[in-house]
């Protein structure tokens, strides 16, 4: 079936399907296939009309969306983050909002009973949430569940999924096990599932509230959340950390931590020189914060490691070096000058950020044909957003605009080059 059941607005599945424009005829055809499977164990079997009607009635009365929540090659940190969500809590998700029929961490059944729960749910329309990457090397031997490869498990669960959420850096991009040399050939969900939109809830792990909100969003709204170029929901990933960071005034004023635990650190100054990846990282950490709004990484004195960004273990390491692996924009060189706290030189730093992100976004957008991220400070092609940048804000804006235009050109060139190389692998550069 090819319809999309994006929201759960009505009390029962039948009403939701009707709302989504699924005809009774299509629904009965679907049920007929299911009945055939139940009856004969094969899709080719023919079910009788009464059986089909009975199943249709049963399915129509389903009152909560069924969910398959897979855990593939991963560390369970994402499920732990869900347990910590203070937004829609895990108990609300599991007991009241959804019927989570398969999740290995919390489900009662094991072995055959678990596999049966999975198979049964897979046959019906369901929401699919995936934690973890898919190791494709050597025939998939590096992660098997119930004797099947992670890739098979994912494909079977995706077939009748109405919505697919890839949750966590592993499911989105492969994360730590995909970093060089990627011994198991780990990839993210959207490298396997190409015929459906995958909502990428990135982060290592994502903030618990963001995960549960991504699920709850589907129940509240008619459509899935709007996505950025990387497939991330804009409700959480429309801002760079740098742009919403409460330490931003210290960056602009050139007040930097020079050594951990120095006077600047105790005063909460900017961690840019300690390697903070906030300027290149789209994440709501400073906005939503972590664990019931208790703190967040930069707030607790550690530079951002950029865990919501693609290949951060390779592109952003060494973590304590100033924005590594970003070539050609002179950001390392400008960092030392920025430290002088001269407003004019700060502008140069901002220009560098603009160039970096413009390149990133331009290539990503082309690749994904998706909604563009909300124009953020310095984005190419967008009018720079008003940001306080000291008494000389006008000249800064002018410089930014010019740099953005140049960066966009560079991006076009880079894009042309990278398209020629084919799909981006784990080691691919953007």
């Amino acid at each position, binding site marked *: 079936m090819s319809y999309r059941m994006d929201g759960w607005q009505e009390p029962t599945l039948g009403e939701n399907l009707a709302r989504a424009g699924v005809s009774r005829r299509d629904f009965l055809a679907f049920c007929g296939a299911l009945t055939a499977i139940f009856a004969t164990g094969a899709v080719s079997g023919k079910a009788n009309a009464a059986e089909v009607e009975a199943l249709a009635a049963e399915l129509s009365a389903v009152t909560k969306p069924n969910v398959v929540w897979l855990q593939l090659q991963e560390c369970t940190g994402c499920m732990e983050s869900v347990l910590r969500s203070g937004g829609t809590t895990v108990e609300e998700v599991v007991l009241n909002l959804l019927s989570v029929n398969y999740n290995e961490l919390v489900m009662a059944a094991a072995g055959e009973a678990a596999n049966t729960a999975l198979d049964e749910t897979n046959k019906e329309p369901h929401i699919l949430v995936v934690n973890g990457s898919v190791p494709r090397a050597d025939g998939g031997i590096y992660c098997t569940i119930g004797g*099947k490869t992670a890739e098979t498990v994912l494909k079977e669960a995706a077939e009748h999924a109405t919505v697919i959420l890839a949750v966590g850096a592993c499911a989105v991009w492969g994360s730590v096990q995909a970093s060089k040399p990627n011994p198991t050939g780990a990839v993210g969900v959207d490298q396997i599932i190409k015929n459906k939109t995958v909502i990428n809830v990135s982060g290592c792990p994502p903030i618990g509230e963001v995960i549960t909100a991504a699920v709850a969003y589907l129940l509240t709204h008619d459509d899935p959340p709007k996505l950025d170029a990387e497939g991330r929901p804009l409700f959480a990933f429309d801002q760079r950390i740098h742009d919403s960071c409460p330490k931003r005034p210290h960056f602009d004023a050139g007040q930097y931590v020079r050594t*951990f635990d120095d006077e600047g650190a105790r005063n909460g100054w900017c961690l840019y020189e300690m390697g903070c990846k906030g300027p290149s990282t789209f994440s709501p950490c400073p906005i939503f914060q972590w664990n019931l709004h208790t703190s967040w990484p930069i707030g607790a004195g550690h530079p951002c490691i950029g865990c919501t960004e693609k290949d951060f273990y390779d592109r952003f390491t*060494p973590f304590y070096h100033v924005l590594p692996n970003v070539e050609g924009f002179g950001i390392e060189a400008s960092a030392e000058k920025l430290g002088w706290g001269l407003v004019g030189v700060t502008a140069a730093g901002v220009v560098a950020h603009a160039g970096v992100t413009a390149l990133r976004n331009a290539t990503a957008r082309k690749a994904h044909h998706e909604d563009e991220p909300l124009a953020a400070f310095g984005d190419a092609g967008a009018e720079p957003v008003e940001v306080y940048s000291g008494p000389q804000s006008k000249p800064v804006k002018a410089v930014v605009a010019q740099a953005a235009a140049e960066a966009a050109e560079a991006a076009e060139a880079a894009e042309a080059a990278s398209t020629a190389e084919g799909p981006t692998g784990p080691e691919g550069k953007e």
Partner: protein
Amino acid sequence: MAERLVIDPITRIEGHLRLELETDGGKISKAWSETTQFRGIETIVKDRDPRDVWAFVQRICGVCTGVHAIASISAVEDAIGSNVPEQARLIRDMVLGSQEVQDHVIHFYHLHALDFVNAANAADADPAKAVEFAEAIGSHWRGNTLQRMTEVRDTVKAIVDSGQLSVFTGGYWDHPDYRLPPEANLMAVAHYLDALEFQRSMIRIGTVFGGKNPHPNFLVGGMACTIDPNKSESINQVQIDQIQQWVDETYDFVVNCYVPDAMAIAGVYSDYFDIGASTPNYLAVGLSGAVFSGNPAESRATSAHTAVAPGVIYDDDFGTVHPFDPAKIEEWITSAWYTYEGGDIGLTPDKGETTVAYTGPQPPYTGAPNDGLPWLADQEKYTWCKAPRYDGRPMQVGPVARVLLAYARGHELTKQLVDDAAATLGITLSQINSTMGRTLARAVECLISAKALKEETFPNFVARLRSGDIDVFDSTRWEPSSWPAECSGYSFVEVARGNLSHWVTIKGGKVERYQAVVPTTWLAGGRDAQGQQGPYEESLAGNGQHPLVDAAKPLEPLRTIHSFDPCMSCAVHVLDPSGEELQAVVA
């Protein structure tokens, strides 16, 4: 005649574990513990900046989050000679201590309880009786109210009536060995939900210092979070007040909810003190949370938890504690999909090598009996998990090992708690080596940890703060230029599931060699060259008496495996010391 059974996936654990069993007349005769995930993280950290490595290896596991990071930074600090300020060490102890309590609570209520608690049956309970039951077992938890029990009963009833059982789908609810009355099941489900709320709250201890949880941030040489009583941007009285509250609520929950519940389960299922005995050897370097690097006899980096010295117990002989010698640890690959250059031998972690050599069947392999697909146990190698041995013996690590070591070493609080529990339950010390014993030991240990957090670690931290000690970072060894050209270090940490060690060699400022020996590796590994089974296998098939009444509803082996609190992502890790890329040889 022997029948074969596969349980895959084992659920309510971290990661991917599969069991293949043979049963005969309702008893398990053979068992194979099979880890079916491999990620190769240690290969990935080679040639990286040693200061970054904690952030990679931390992602070995998100359940025992932070413990690999602490082991990593301690090993690197040991190698480069960094002296971590005492306050940073106490902060790490608080993060580790709160994590351990959270981990044990999650394990008991969310991963293990459904082996004993019939959640569906709670729908039939009288809420008033549930309150009475709680009182009867000595639970003084504030959630034991008629209103709360009614609310929870209605929630469960709505789920059962709807026919959409969510996470309870496919549970063995009609299994005859669920023994609790409906009111006890209802109380347990209510506490299951309360525990979720509890852990969300108390885990914030780690968030204050590490900025997020799971996967808080750490730092080689100390901590990144600054403390200063007179600065708003540093940890000050505002956070101290919060932590005091969370430390208090932690102790309250453990004493008034967790421990009484664990004792009640242990009482009702007391025959499980005679089921699931595993290898009678135990290894621990101290109480939960103990951290040390270097020579255990002259440790230069020790945590606040020094009350119990490292030690080893053989053959359930609790009267003799042998000194712990890290050089006696070896890892075997007899049953694991790797090869050693020297053949089927044991290698110490500092000389560990791993070349992937997969010889198992190409997936899919059997997921259910009679599906006609191959079994892993038909071959000599059947797992990704190596088999560590100490002095040639398989060892139990974890709460059971720590509690028994502490008891043998005369640790007073441990002795008192264990003796009281043993008297109440009518068991002997050696019966702690059992399915229910491991579950009881975890509760006992959790109480000790919650008490240490409340009465030692946190007050010590505050006292030092009061005296003006606000340093949290040793900057003298931050720059790689300050390190020796080549150096090695290791650290041992007692984490939720047992003894964890990380081993690092640094050359020219980069990681040359990295190895982790992880609790679940100790426990989940398979057979060695001497044919000795790993502890999981021994607990199921050690004496041929482990029950399994109905192969379609393998509740009994799940109880035993869950009593170890498996963490499979932790268990499998790989280092190629020669620096060559891994080669997979696929049969």
